[in-house]
């Protein structure tokens, strides 16, 4: 007990490298942009006024209390912007804000616009949305409210404004604890079902037409394999808060979770979901589990792309020696 309280105090007060926030912002931004580009060919089917589910239907059945595209379209009606025009406008804003977010240009504004436009799209398209949208929304919300532009961003090099260390620590800990709650809840919910104890969950998932990517018929003759995989998943998820926060196990736990999401992406064909969870874990716990992974190596070589931005924007003296010091 004597050790636990100081450890908790230390967890919430010890300085954390600000690069973790920069990495989180870039990870969420890049993921959302890649997802956007992947969905673009079917965009109007998911979000258009006459898509798979017309706006009247998705609005009528929605239990969400957030505004959707139809609400926004009504606001724009006086400007003679049609329903389709509203989708194009929101889509353009979403794309531009994600680009700005990745580069950390006017980060707070870009984060807010990205979060809001994603909210509009997700409210309208929530019947087609699955877990990946839940996590994208969470990630974009944090990009709006947390100081994610404090590192690896155009903003931080143009106008450095040192952040109080407690704010960086608090911001990182919120995301980390959020992930811990997610995995704990997910693990506990799975553990209620018998399929996760006898291996049938993985067997059924990989046999379902939607997720059938590789032949696993051989597993029926070796049921111990899916059983071990299922129980391993239960352990990795339910004990995630302990495993990832404990100094002795954190590296192993992060690698186990990253592997799990890698295999979900490959063997269940859920590339977007697996990719996002991989990125969120890596960005949030990478520096915590492998100190120096973001803060040590990125000091000088990583500024090359900022120089390109500098040239593009014709901003002088962007990289004075003082400003390029990477703040912790």
């Amino acid at each position, binding site marked *: 007990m004597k050790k636990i309280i100081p450890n908790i105090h230390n967890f919430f007060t010890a300085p954390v490298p600000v690069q973790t926030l920069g990495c989180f912002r870039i990870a969420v931004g890049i993921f959302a942009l890649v997802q956007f580009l992947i969905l673009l060919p079917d965009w109007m089917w998911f979000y258009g006024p006459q898509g798979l589910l017309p706006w009247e239907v998705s609005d009528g059945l929605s239990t969400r209390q957030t505004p959707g595209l139809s609400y926004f379209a009504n606001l724009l009606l006086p400007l003679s912007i049609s329903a389709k025009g509203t989708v194009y406008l929101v889509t353009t804003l979403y794309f531009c804000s994600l680009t700005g977010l990745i580069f950390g240009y006017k980060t707070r504004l870009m984060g807010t616009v990205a979060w809001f436009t994603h909210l509009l799209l997700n409210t309208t398209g929530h*019947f087609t949305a699955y877990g990946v949208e839940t996590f994208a929304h969470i990630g974009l919300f944090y990009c709006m409210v947390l100081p994610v532009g404090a590192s690896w961003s155009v903003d931080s090099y143009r106008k450095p404004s040192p952040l109080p260390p407690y704010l960086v620590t608090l911001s990182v800990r919120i995301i980390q604890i959020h992930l811990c709650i997610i995995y704990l809840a997910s693990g506990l919910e799975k553990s209620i079902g018998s399929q996760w104890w006898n291996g049938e969950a993985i067997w059924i998932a990989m046999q*379902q037409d939607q997720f059938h990517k590789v032949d696993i018929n051989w597993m*029926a003759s070796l049921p111990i394999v899916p059983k071990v995989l299922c129980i391993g998943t239960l352990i990795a998820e339910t004990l995630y808060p302990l495993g990832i926060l404990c100094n002795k196990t954190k590296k192993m736990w992060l690698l186990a979770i990253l592997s799990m999401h890698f295999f979900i992406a490959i063997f269940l064909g859920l590339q977007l979901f697996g990719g996002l969870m991989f990125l969120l874990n890596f960005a949030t716990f990478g520096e915590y589990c492998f100190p120096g992974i973001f803060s040590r190596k990125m000091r000088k070589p990583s500024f090359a792309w900022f120089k390109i931005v500098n040239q593009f924007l014709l901003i002088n003296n962007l990289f004075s020696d003082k400003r390029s010091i990477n703040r912790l």
Partner: protein
Amino acid sequence: MPLKHKLYFSLATLHLVLIGLFASHLGEWGRAEHPVMKAVSCLGDYTGSNNIFSFFAPGLSDQPYVVYATKDATGKERVLDLKGNSPDFTNRINNIYGYLTLEEGRSVFSASLAQFVLQRYPSADKIRVAMVVQKIPTMDEFRDGKRSQWHFWFHRDFEKNTAADKSKIN
């Protein structure tokens, strides 16, 4: 600790408590219509705190799928499988098909999908939206020779007409 710090820590604590409560299915505890619950739920919609995390939990059930059969004025029939252009389309359309398993939403979801397919195939006059489910055998059953099978579940028929009320539902 300055007041500003305390405020930030309090907001963070509140946010994390809400995440924990919603992850514990707060919405199903009752009193969902209570104004406080509604306000908290609304806040959660914006902040992303009101989510449950039941991915593949507590287990997996039979997988639903939908096939469409259209008929044009000349009587020519065509069986369609709705495919998108993006790799993630299947995951998303399957989400809608999942809602078709609920009796309450069956009519409206099947009508919406029928309308969508008829828009894509304007020559078709009639459409049948048929739901099938894939039954996966357990590993024991598989060893005994049983294999995965698709079973017909239900169908809805729709006709293209100028008057919406002429849609025929079986």
